[in-house]
């Protein structure tokens, strides 16, 4: 499993570079051009991240989140799921930068290769922020009645999160 995972990125890079070579594009110039486009992304990202770290840290560190969702604790311990990933699960559909902030905190505390770190990584990597996508995409074309889209989106999130937990627990 680890071997296959480790091979995916080198193979992808190789394919991209070879294809670019055959098509005779300026490989290096194109690379620099693309890398440069990360600057505007970072500058737009920073205020969002800062705001989300502030909000999420106050919310999670104060203990109000655990208190709020403490009724879920027996379910978590029954399935041997670490309770620490709860903030991740709750926040995932709402905001991408907030879960990234939570992920950062979990890595700092437990390390990326721990069970908690791995589950959190897979949750972050396999789902997307439903609320954000809905607001942005429907907002851009003026759709007011979103019908059943929110339910289906959240359902997909839950399936993603549950399978992330099951798959990771099976592997470790």
């Amino acid at each position, binding site marked *: *499993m680890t071997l296959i*995972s480790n091979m*995916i*990125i080198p193979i992808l890079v190789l394919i991209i570079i070879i*294809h*670019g070579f*055959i*098509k005779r*594009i300026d490989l290096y110039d*194109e*690379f620099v051009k*693309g*890398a440069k*486009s*990360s600057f505007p992304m*970072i500058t737009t*990202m*920073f205020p969002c*991240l*800062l705001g*989300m770290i*502030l909000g*999420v*840290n*106050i*919310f999670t*560190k*104060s*203990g109000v989140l655990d208190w709020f969702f403490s009724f879920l604790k027996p379910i978590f311990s029954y399935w041997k799921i670490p309770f620490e990933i709860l903030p991740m699960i709750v926040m995932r559909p*709402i905001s991408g930068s907030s879960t*990234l902030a939570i992920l*950062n905190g979990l890595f700092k505390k437990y390390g*990326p*290769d721990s069970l908690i*770190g791995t589950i959190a*990584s*897979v949750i972050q*990597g*396999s*789902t*997307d922020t439903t*609320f954000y*996508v809905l607001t942005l*995409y*429907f907002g851009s*074309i*003026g*759709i007011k*009645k979103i019908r*059943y889209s929110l339910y*289906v*989106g959240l*359902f*997909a*999130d839950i*399936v*993603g999160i549950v399978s*992330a937990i099951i*798959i*990771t627990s099976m592997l470790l």
Partner: protein
Amino acid sequence: MVNKIWGFFIISGIVFCFFTGNIKLINDEILNCTKSAIDMIFKIFPVMALWLGIMQIASSSGLLNIFANKLSILLTKIFPDIPYGHESLSFIASNIVANMFGLGNAATPFGLKAMESLQTLNNKKDTASRSMITFLVLNTSGVTIIPTTIISLRMMYKSITPTAIVLPCIIATSLSTIAGLILDRIISRRIK
């Protein structure tokens, strides 16, 4: 939506701490969040630049287009309401391909174009059409092959196997996408 949630987080967190007496903790948290944020940006930034650079090569050489064309055939099955060869299919395909390679910001413009194009097929302009909802399900379930940000964050925390999560991510994301599409089909048939 996000505005209200954000406000709720801060208010409830601080008020809760007044009750539990943990006010020093919150004080530190407020003052330290700037450091956490700048640390994180510095961790993510170089890796993002790396992948955007590599993906720029793939998009200039036409490799992303080849993927997108292959996908369009599959997409006509997922979106039965879109007439064959309609331009929205190619936007949807480009959006999915960009998402697959972890190019969130390249994916968004394609996604917005796709929505605009789907709106031209929509009869009720203020109501989401069936194809739009299907497209959003594809998007929110997050079809990612290379979760670049997470890999970079794992590397920064000295993970022994930073890319070990790639395969589990692909499996989990496929399951959630399939589940979302199935539920979407069931509901849209019922409503008809």
